């Protein structure tokens, strides 16, 4: 039976459109650089990120320490490089879990409708009604500070948007004739969703992931800035800015570099996400 799935040439054409978008390609390159920094951190970082040197406390950028040192004499550049691991891993993990929950519930709501749709959409209404940072803070208060709890808190909040978007897509796709044909020949609902509906939602899923990761990174940085995320001595960009606040007079540059990292990676994902959206469905550009 012919499966009406997007052909390989569709993705090839989409990648061709993406390559023409210079800003998106720049974003992709920057993301690749950050991923390489995260993977090869032990080889690239000039110092141990936890090594304290009391003679080098709160030093400004120099040849010895290109990004300066913090209040315990630790090299900021090394901590920034290791911080990439935390930001990227938290971003990817949160988005992976949010996507799993969101796609599953979105498909159930959109495909089955009825009571399932009502229950799932009311759950998303509740999550949207709560300001996300406040909700995250409340969950973190209940669970306690730490990165694992940040992961759970942000994943609980992040799935709702995905579920709504996927539900919208499924509502459209399930009405198409080939889906009716699948049902008519006795194909099971589970097989229809897995083999036909989800593959046709893939472009939307790709864009949601790309635009969801920077939100997750920013949220983790915000919670770490409030002292609820990564705990000392872990090197998280948000907690570095949190610590830098106290030393703004003595070492103003301490807070600059972690913020630049957050801004660069969020910007790169946003630009790439915009480019992917335009490349995967040029009609959305209008």
């Amino acid at each position, binding site marked *: 039976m012919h499966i009406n799935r997007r052909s390989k040439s569709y993705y090839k054409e989409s990648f061709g459109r993406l390559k023409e978008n210079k800003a998106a390609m720049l974003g992709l390159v920057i993301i690749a650089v950050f991923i390489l920094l995260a993977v090869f951190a032990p080889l690239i970082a000039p110092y141990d990120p936890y090594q304290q040197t009391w003679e080098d406390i709160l030093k400004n950028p120099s040849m010895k320490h290109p990004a300066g040192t913090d209040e315990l004499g630790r090299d900021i550049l090394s901590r920034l490089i290791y911080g990439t691991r935390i930001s990227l891993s938290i971003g990817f993990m949160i988005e992976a879990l949010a996507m799993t929950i969101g796609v599953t519930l979105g498909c159930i709501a959109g495909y089955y409708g009825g009571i399932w749709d009502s229950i799932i959409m009311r759950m998303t209404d509740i999550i949207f*009604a*709560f300001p996300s940072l*406040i909700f995250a803070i409340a969950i973190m*208060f209940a669970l306690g500070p730490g990165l694992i709890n940040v992961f759970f808190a942000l994943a609980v909040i992040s799935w709702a948007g995905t579920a709504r978007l996927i539900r919208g897509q499924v509502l459209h796709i399930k009405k198409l004739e080939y889906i009716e044909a699948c049902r008519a020949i006795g194909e099971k609902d589970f097989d229809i969703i897995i083999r036909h509906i989800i593959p046709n939602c893939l472009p939307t899923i790709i864009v949601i992931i790309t635009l969801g990761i920077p939100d997750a990174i920013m949220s983790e940085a915000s919670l770490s800035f409030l002292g609820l995320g990564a705990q000392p001595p872990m090197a998280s960009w948000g907690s570095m800015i949190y610590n830098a606040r106290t030393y703004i007079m003595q070492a103003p540059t301490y807070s600059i570099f972690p913020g630049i990292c957050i801004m660069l990676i969020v910007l790169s994902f*946003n630009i790439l996400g915009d480019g992917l959206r335009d490349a995967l469905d040029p009609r959305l550009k209008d």
Partner: protein
Amino acid sequence: MLSYLIKRFFQAVFAILAISVITFFLMNVIPGDPVSLMMEKRADPETIERIRHEMGTDLPLTTQYINMMKKAFSGDLGKSFFSGIPVSQLIGQKFQTTLKLALLAYLFALTVGILSGVFAALNRGKIGDSTVMIMAMFGISAPVFWIALILQIVFGLVFKCLPISGFSTPAHMILPMVTLGLANASSIARITRTSMLEVMKQDYIRTARAKGVYEKRVVFKHMLKNALLPIITISGTQLGGLLTGAIMTETVFGISGLGRLTVESIFRRDFPVIQGTVLFIAVVYVVVNLLVDLSYALVDPRISLSEVD
């Protein structure tokens, strides 16, 4: 219109009830017994039990929740463990500051965002357009708390022209207002540019120019007025977010507002204050979003409110 109003009202009530249940659950179930945590190891079991009875935390959870809601409806959100001051009084004092900050940031975002977006649209494809859009992208991507620190360094330490903490005088309000409003100004600039470009293609704009109408009048009376709806939509949804974004701004600038109260009470494990502030901020957020939804029909009579949902 009336049926839509009733439907949205009940949706808002449902959302507020759900938020109160979730907040109660998070504050009272998962962290364990609030009284033991408050007393830590300073009290014997009999004293802890007595205080638990006085505070009503020895009752079943559903009874505790109902009692909490009954008191909340009458404005009693309990007392701070730390200061003994009624939570509603604390919230009343601090909310005024947060509201002032949020409104100033909103006005800043609207003014700067709309003017930048109009400028970018009128200079489409030129360097002015690219500059505004690049700055807008940076504004959206930079964390609020980092923008606050950078502004403190530049204007407080390098140029020494603005105070870097507090909120008492107009000079003190500038940096917090810019910090909180910058991300929203960036979003509004992008939406304004897109909306203006759509309107600029319309026949009535060509007609106005052909009639010899002054360009400034064409831009502000014909183009911008018709481009306003998406701008109001996006800026309206941001208003509620400003109240939560104030948490970061108040923390950095040492402003004694609701956001800072929330953060401080978390570190003090002051349960009644955390519960009260979280519930209050969430309720305000729901009400603001409801008012924004209802205002759409006022802005554009062509919109039926049932389409907005």
